[in-house]
């Protein structure tokens, strides 16, 4: 396939697939723990971190941008925790508030960056919607350096992670450090977000966390299968998006990847056996006819 023959295309495709697979896998826990909105807020909140990292160092090195993005996202999560614990503001309102504050601050920083002489290669749009075409080999290594430890942590503690996600009260009663696992799973989610920001951008990143998990849930009743399927769907959508973007001049890869992922999700919601809308309708009709 020409996607893998051309060096630039190959880098973009592999990078996108890595992002799709890792965020798909880790996103399952965000969805099952009902933290999808937190993921969205954290990915938006990463924007000022990236902008500041770029502003301070003047470099577009992936590791520096990752550190900036992760710090801002974690700061936002921490702030959220403090607001919910110490005030009467409910968590959905606090989420919206913090998302807006961080994202707004990020936009201000970006508009300032725009006027800087060296900002041409790191324009406004590339941070908001990603710029997959600019991925280089070093970016891939950075993605692996963040993604592999995150995946490994989840796999090492798989039984505990599963129990804490399903029934935290019971987990605490047998002595598991549930708080610690909450922190671990949030850090892992930040890792997934940070990996995706260069490719799909802060605005659309939460779709890559949530959509593969929702699609995968339709096809299986086992968590083990679900995470593998979600990773597969994420990678598949990423490859399809990368390929589509080569068909026309100036078609943005990130949004195309998200669109492909949404397509997979919609198809899963309609056609999956057992849980799909079509299936459930058919069965309802059968039951009605039988009675």
């Amino acid at each position, binding site marked *: 396939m020409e996607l893998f023959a051309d060096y630039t295309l190959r880098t973009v495709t592999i990078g996108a697939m890595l992002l799709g697979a890792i965020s798909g896998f880790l996103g399952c826990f965000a969805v099952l723990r009902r933290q999808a909105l937190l993921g969205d807020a954290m990915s938006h909140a990463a924007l000022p971190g990236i902008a500041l990292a770029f502003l301070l160092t003047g470099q577009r090195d992936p590791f520096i941008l990752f550190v900036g993005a992760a710090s801002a996202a974690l700061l936002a999560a921490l702030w959220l925790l403090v607001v919910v614990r110490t005030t009467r503001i409910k968590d959905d309102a606090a989420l919206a508030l913090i998302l807006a504050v961080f994202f707004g601050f990020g936009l201000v920083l970006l508009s300032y960056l725009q006027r800087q002489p060296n900002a041409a290669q790191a324009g406004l749009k590339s941070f908001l919607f990603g710029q997959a075409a600019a991925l280089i080999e070093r970016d891939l290594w950075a993605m692996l350096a963040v993604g592999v430890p995150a995946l490994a942590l989840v796999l090492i503690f*798989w*039984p*505990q992670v599963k129990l804490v996600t*399903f029934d935290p009260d019971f987990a*605490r*009663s047998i*002595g598991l450090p549930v708080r610690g696992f909450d922190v671990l799973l949030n850090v892992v989610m930040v890792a997934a977000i940070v990996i995706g920001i260069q490719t799909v951008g802060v605005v659309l990143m939460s779709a890559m966390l949530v959509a593969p998990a929702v699609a995968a849930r339709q096809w299986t*009743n086992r*968590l083990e299968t679900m995470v593998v399927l979600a990773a597969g769907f994420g990678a598949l959508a990423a490859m399809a998006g990368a390929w589509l973007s080569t068909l026309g001049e100036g078609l943005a890869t990130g949004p195309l990847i998200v669109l492909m992922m949404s397509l997979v999700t919609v198809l899963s919601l309609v056609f999956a056996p057992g849980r799909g809308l079509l299936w459930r309708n058919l069965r309802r009709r059968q039951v009605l006819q039988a009675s």
Partner: protein
Amino acid sequence: MEIAVDIQDLTVAYGDKPVLWDVDLQVPRGVLMAIIGPNGAGKTTLLKSTLGLVKPAAGSVRIFGKPYEQQRHLIAYVPQRSSVDWDFPTTVLDVVLMGRYGHLGWLRRPGRAERAAALAALEQVQLADFAHRQIGQLSGGQQQRVFLARALAQDAEIYFMDEPFQGVDAVTERAIINILRDLRAAGKTVVVVHHDLQTVTEYFDQVALINVRRIAAGPVHDVFTEANLRATYGGRLALLETSRVAAPASSAAPAPGD
């Protein structure tokens, strides 16, 4: 008589509102004890703070004379059925296996011995045929039995259960109470948050009446009196027939399902 659970001066508050106030409770070993009281009386909170899930503002809990943290392996817990998402992608057997996690080390995966124990627990609640079903495909009563099986798999000395009869049919209620009696016969201690006053005398040996404070606790025939119930429920005590109060259960009463 050996004391299994010893709760002293337990006070729990959410914000500045006390939910439990200075509660003392002793549970002797080898009894079935019901915790009863009106909605919002702090029954679930009493259970959760005993298990360390809710941090008390004051007071202590000792299990066979030692702090809870040292005795975790002697405890099994059945949370309220509504406390988890039953659409979670997992099978019945997987949930029951979770009962063995407390006995496994950090990095050990459940193996053949754990699976055998989980299957035996499922057998006890008559759900062995459902081992590989997704948990969302079960009825409410079956889900309750899955939670019970998980607690049985914990192979504990003391069982804490939060409303195990909530939303189950009469047949399931029979099955559950028979299992609780088997546990008692094996010398285990069972503490149950219960809401059906009609069945207290029939099912339980001991009862604790709670309404933020401890109103009374002890053997059913001593403390399950009309005066104590009035003190616990106030004016809300309407359904109870006086004939059932503090009289030994003579005939098999029909088990009311919800």
